[in-house]
């Protein structure tokens, strides 16, 4: 008789993680195929078209890279916070405050041209970091749940930007519409060739990945983060200061999101506009980017590219097949559904055993 046996895997190997992830993405594609069929579209043809337009040509690849820049910065920052079990849901607000700092630098600082771009990134980082640290202080000193505060701070950031673009920062060039003036040319981030990739932000993202990798694997801070992440009590007995550790974690985590915001306004929009337009939910998608990377900062490069590709594939589906935009969300939802439910497959081993 065949018996199903389920065993726990202590630490899933990378081979298992990779193959299960790929398998679940394929399963998602299979199910989504039925949606295509429902619209009278041949799914095989649809996937070929999507592949050609995403990874199948140079333009598609630049689009994916461009789209993954803010996801990478938000994702890798969040990963560090999650490592310390600090549930930062506020990357969205930290990103927006970063864009606010960057806008101030570009429009109102009056700095000489060559200092503009460095200042944009410095103030972008500062904006995001300060926003993240508010929740840190509340958590460490007053034991306020960080999930609530970081989430709520998102809405505060949104409304501050709304106030600024309707009020004191509203641009005279915009004929009354709620936008700031366009940034002066020296404050525009350079782009790579004919593409839209604002490479300074991309490099920041890669540097952030390297720095966070080194912090986690090579430093005392990284060790403390891991201990706190496992057990706050144990950390306390070991004499690790919770506030000090989380302070550095959120400085970096919020700062990374802030850099993403600075990159968006200085590299893409060249102005401050409605918060819904500055961030297309990057701070929230960043949570999934970080989660899928399973604690390894280097893997966020892959996961952010995956979500960049999903965004671009969504655009292709709409334009080439006339699918409604909501279908794109169904598409991402399906992929996430399969990825998240595959988690159990990674942690448990299923085998059949013949029983006498």
């Amino acid at each position, binding site marked *: 008789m065949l018996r199903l046996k389920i065993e726990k895997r202590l630490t899933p190997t990378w081979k298992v993680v990779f193959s299960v992830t790929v398998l679940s993405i394929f399963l998602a594609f299979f199910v989504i195929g039925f949606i295509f069929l429902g619209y009278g579209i041949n799914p095989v043809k649809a996937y070929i078209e999507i592949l050609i337009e995403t990874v199948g040509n140079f333009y598609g690849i630049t689009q994916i890279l461009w789209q993954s820049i803010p996801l990478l910065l938000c994702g890798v920052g969040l990963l560090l916070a999650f490592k310390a079990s600090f549930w930062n849901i506020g990357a969205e607000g930290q990103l927006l405050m970063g864009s606010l700092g960057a806008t101030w630098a570009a429009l109102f600082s009056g700095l000489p041209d060559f200092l503009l771009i460095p200042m944009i990134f410095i103030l972008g980082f500062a904006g995001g970091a300060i926003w993240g640290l508010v929740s840190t202080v509340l958590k460490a000193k007053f034991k306020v749940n960080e999930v609530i505060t970081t989430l709520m701070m998102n809405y505060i950031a949104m409304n501050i930007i709304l106030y600024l673009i309707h009020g004191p920062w509203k641009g005279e060039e915009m004929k009354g519409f709620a936008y700031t003036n366009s940034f002066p040319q020296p404050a525009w981030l350079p782009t790579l060739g004919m593409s839209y990739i604002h490479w300074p932000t991309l490099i920041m993202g890669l540097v952030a990945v390297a720095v966070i990798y080194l912090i986690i694997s090579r430093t005392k801070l990284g060790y403390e983060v891991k201990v706190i992440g496992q057990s706050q009590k144990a950390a306390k007995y070991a004499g690790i200061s919770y506030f000090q550790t989380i302070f550095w974690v959120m400085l970096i985590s919020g700062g990374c999101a802030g850099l993403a915001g600075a990159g968006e306004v200085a590299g893409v929009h060249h102005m401050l506009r409605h918060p819904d337009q500055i961030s297309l939910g990057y701070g929230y998608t960043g949570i999934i980017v970080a989660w899928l990377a399973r604690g390894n900062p280097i893997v966020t490069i892959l996961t952010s590219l995956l979500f960049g590709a999903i965004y671009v594939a969504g655009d292709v589906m*709409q334009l080439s097949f006339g699918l409604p935009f909501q279908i794109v969300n169904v598409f991402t939802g399906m992929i996430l559904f399969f990825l998240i439910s595959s988690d159990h497959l990674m942690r448990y081993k299923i085998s059949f055993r013949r029983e006498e």
Partner: protein
Amino acid sequence: MRKVVLLILCLVFVFTGAIGLLAQDKLKAGFIYVGPIGDMGWTHAHDQARKICENTFPWLETVYQESVPEGKVEGVIDRMIRRERCDVVFTTSFGFWEGTIAAAKKYPDKVFAHCSGFMRTPNCATYMADFYQVYYLNGLMAGALTKSNKVGYVGAFPIPEVKRHIDAFTLGVLEVNPRAEVHVRWIEAWFDPAKAKEATNSLIDAGCDVFAFTEDSDTVVQVAAENRLPSFGHYSPMYNSAPDYIVSGQLVHWELFYLDFLAKVYAGYYTSKNLENVDYWGLLKEGAAELGPKFGMPINPKWKSRLGKTNDLVLERLKQMQNPQMIFDPFTGPIYDRNGKMVVGRGERADYGHLLSIEYAVKGVVGAWPGEPK
């Protein structure tokens, strides 16, 4: 001998030219929308016009993409031109201007048209259909219908376009009922039924009993009807949402612009070289805007008796504004803002530039007004 060769060469050129023209007998247009085509307002109306164009012109093919974020418009244009081989691209929201102008420079031989913008290039025209005259007519009716002397208005964004509409509406309200006030709530979104509902309820609590709005769903009409209060539709025919409580509304005919523009591009009259000064501005007299809760019905007959004399006034003013000479216009002085400053002088009529950049609130408007001139 030489002449013969020249002649033959000329003939060859003419023929290949003609073949080139014949081969170019298809035109492909891409439409970029800011919202979902399933809304009941702006994007839906543009998409209806797109369908009319496609059914009218056998040589026309169209593609579209909905709910495009402002920062992504340039990428969508790239794909429309590179992959879908569009000849003409329409971008239908103000926020798309930066990407549209950048793309127009990048593809100098393609034709672009940007809705509600003010920046043009040799290959990018602008167009807009405006409702302020219709809002004024609705205001006349709202002024006649309010018993509490408080009219509610749910506004999308405090920008000149919406401010112009609220001002025109208020001018109408006060013309019929000088003691009335127009209470405004901003929802900071073009499409957000939840916020629109909240705003309408808050206006009802403040004592308002007639409603107009700028938001791309029929929420305000529905909430008003649930409270047995009259309202005015916006952008799409909303008669069926509340046949007993909708009085009138604003309707748009974007196809007038699209048909005209595409025909001229097809005929070679508009090219990628001569659009620098092409700016369409459609009002009642052009037929771009229409008064009514649904097409062909200027005023809901159920409300005719309640409106009394105002019914005739509305129809008269409608006729005057439909007249090609535009005998009447609501923005005719003297008009005072709510701080008492004269903004349009006695006997003057506000010009195009004035209308496009309105920031003031006229007398009678109550509520927050971001960006109000001191």
